[in-house]
């Protein structure tokens, strides 16, 4: 009896490690991927010195960051200063608990999975705010305020986009959302929910404070925003959390709009089988979009970010939720 319970806890811990370790590795190579992609888009080589084709560059960066000293600004609140990166990282990792990688391959198959993800991604803003306030620096505080306003605004558009998915799938459970899209490419939700799909991903870019919405860091205006005072491993933790959040936004876009682990190829060949590789491939496409955006677009002006979120995205999502509800009631297309 008691051994059963202990075994359940140990087994869950093993599963958590099996998710977190590949995630950290994925973050390391996402930075390499980003620098290579942006390098090629700028017609330069990208990292190519450490290891063959620069493949060991992420590890060189990690060891550099881990061996550096953490500097505390004068009059900074030490406890909050140290806890802020931990909060950011914890929420970024916690969201992965409900992500289904393949049929049945999920840590916690809970009914309210979609709301849980939204709650966890919105908690990440605390790390940013606390870091900005505890640093005792004007630039950090300005970055934190910008970030808080931006994340709260785009959360609404993102939440409404997810409401569309919820209406289409009739469930908040992520596994059931993917299973609702079974039956080939034309059953995937990105076709009936196309405006919501676009808005979800753009809001995701804004939520993770990435270019072109990276005013919270804004290195040309406020140096580096909320993490300007962070160095060494504390900065590395922020960095890790940012990339983990990007990967989860990409993974969710694949789950909710591109049919998760289902294959786009019809037929009976080995490529037509649903598998975790399709899911990872779809998530990688969205990661590429992130880097493509960063290399292509100049940074948005702050007031235009707010205008885009409140006056463009939210009205579009509300209208499209109505459209989806009507499509759902009248069972239009192969989707409903």
């Amino acid at each position, binding site marked *: *009896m008691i051994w059963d*319970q202990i075994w359940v806890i140990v087994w869950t811990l093993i599963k958590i490690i099996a998710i977190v370790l590949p995630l950290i590795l994925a973050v390391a190579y996402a930075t390499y991927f980003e620098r290579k992609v942006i390098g090629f888009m700028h017609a330069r080589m990208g990292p190519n010195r450490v290891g063959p084709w620069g493949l060991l560059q992420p590890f060189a960066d990690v060891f550099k960051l881990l061996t550096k000293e953490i500097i505390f600004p004068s009059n900074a609140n030490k406890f909050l200063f140290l806890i802020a990166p931990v909060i950011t990282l914890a929420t970024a990792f916690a969201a992965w608990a409900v992500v289904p990688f393949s049929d049945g391959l999920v840590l916690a198959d809970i*009914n309210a999975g979609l*709301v849980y993800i939204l*709650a966890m991604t919105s908690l990440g803003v605390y790390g940013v*705010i606390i870091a900005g306030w505890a640093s005792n620096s004007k630039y950090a505080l300005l970055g934190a*305020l910008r970030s*808080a306003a931006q994340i709260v605004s785009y959360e609404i558009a993102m939440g409404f986009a997810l409401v569309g998915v919820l209406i289409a799938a009739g469930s908040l459970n992520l596994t059931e959302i993917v299973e609702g899209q079974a039956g080939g490419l034309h059953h995937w939700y990105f076709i009936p929910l196309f405006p919501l799909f676009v808005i979800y991903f753009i809001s995701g870019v804004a939520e993770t404070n990435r270019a072109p919405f990276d005013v919270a860091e804004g290195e040309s205006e406020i140096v580096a925003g909320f993490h300007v005072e962070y160095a060494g491993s504390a900065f590395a933790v922020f960095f890790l959390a940012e990339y983990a959040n990007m990967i989860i936004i990409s993974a969710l876009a694949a789950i909710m709009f591109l049919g998760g682990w289902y294959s786009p190829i019809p037929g009976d060949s080995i490529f037509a089988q649903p598998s975790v590789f399709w899911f990872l491939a779809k998530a990688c496409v969205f990661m590429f979009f992130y880097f493509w955006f960063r290399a292509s677009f100049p940074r948005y002006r702050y*007031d235009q970010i707010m205008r885009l979120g409140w006056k463009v995205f939210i009205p579009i999502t509300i209208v499209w939720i109505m459209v989806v509800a009507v499509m759902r009631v009248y069972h239009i297309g192969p989707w409903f």
Partner: protein
Amino acid sequence: MMSPELFQQLLFYVFATMTVGSAMAVVSVKNTVYAALFLVLCFFNTAVLWMLIEAEFLAITLVLVYVGAVMVLFLFVVMMLDIKKPKAAILKQSYTKAALLIVGAMLVELMMLFGYKLQDQLPQDELIRMPAGYSNVAEVGEELFIHYVYPFEIAAVILLVAIVAAISLTLRKRPENKTIDASKQININPAERMRVVSMKAEKGNGEKS
């Protein structure tokens, strides 16, 4: 031996203690930012308590709405305040007595409510257990949109009116404000702003510039 029920009770007492403790810290710490963060902790522990009675949708919504949105705005305001160390004299002012009176009255009311009125309805020893396959999401949805649809819709309309009223009361345009309408900036027509003049190439008189 630890049965699942005992384990759940243990969890309840751990999180309930943290809820009460953080709620007391909200009103007793001097630093306002710490107070706001303790309130966040209090909400979070309350959500865990709801999770223990299998109300997972309500628990996550509490985190999403109160912790993820409302408290962010609170913290936003509190961080902008110029925090001064409160002196002991402030705590001994007359309104402290009034506050204590109100707190005492509320405490007596709550004790009467739980002690006398709800005595029969409270479960005595056993935990509330839902059958397997119970979905809190579906349950809340049915209650809100079928059984209580009119109160729900009326409450929504009242909130909407309140939002519109609050915005229209506080929105004012200052004449010295030089903000430009962003939609005007985006929807400009270059032909209205720019005149392309065609002119002959100027000829120099052979001097090197």
